[in-house]
């Protein structure tokens, strides 16, 4: 059986659809045995749902750098 650390990593990858089928299978098997990771997976998935629902946007690093630069000019 995989360790909790591995399970967490697969769970995190799964939030971004980057876990393979086998990884997910190993995760489910682990969760079946481990209450702590089961709870973690539940909350982690909820966080993903909330982030999607919130539809957050962000400025790019380039845009922020420009903002900083313009602001610095006026300091």
């Amino acid at each position, binding site marked *: 059986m995989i360790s909790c650390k591995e399970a967490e990593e697969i769970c995190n990858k799964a939030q971004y659809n980057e876990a393979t089928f086998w990884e997910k299978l190993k995760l489910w098997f682990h969760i079946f045995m481990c209450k702590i990771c089961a709870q973690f997976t539940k909350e982690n998935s909820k966080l993903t749902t909330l982030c999607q629902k919130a539809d*957050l946007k962000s400025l790019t690093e380039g*845009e922020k750098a420009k903002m900083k630069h313009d602001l610095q000019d006026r300091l």
Partner: protein
Amino acid sequence: MKGEKIMSEHALHPETWVDLYADYLFNYALPRVSDTEIAKDLVQDTFFAALKSAENYKGDAAERTWLIAILKRKVIDHYRKVNSKKGKAEIRINYGSNDESEGSWLEERVADPYSKQEINALENEELRMAIQDCISKLPKKQALVFTMKTIRGMDTETICNELDINPSNLWVMIHRARTALMECLNKNWFKL
């Protein structure tokens, strides 16, 4: 001197504004103007205006609250400008142009103030600002990685190249960020 005031006791730290508040302000402005460029300009204008009126900052409100108050006025000013250009608001209703809705009445098209959609919009607004608030409390690098991955949806390889880290570093940072966010949201807002 202006500089002294800025550095004084209830100090403002303009050099940290962009890192700490730009995304927060941007997420506040964007749904209100529905245009990325305009929202970005409003955030920039807010920083400039804040700098100009730094002497009026009494330190009784948190820096961010003070910036949001300025941004609110900027949003209002924006709509004033837009409306004075247009003269009047335009209302278009394509009544009868759509076969499916033929025979429906105007009343049915008027928004119900208590409609589910609006309540959802309000909830989402709160949620959006709550998450953004928790993100801004993360260590800078974690916040950056989380934002690139989750909000901008960039792929792992691109982020690793851009930040010069390896994938296992990335997943460790994502893990720390997500754990901290869950805790922050749990504590301050909802039960996850």
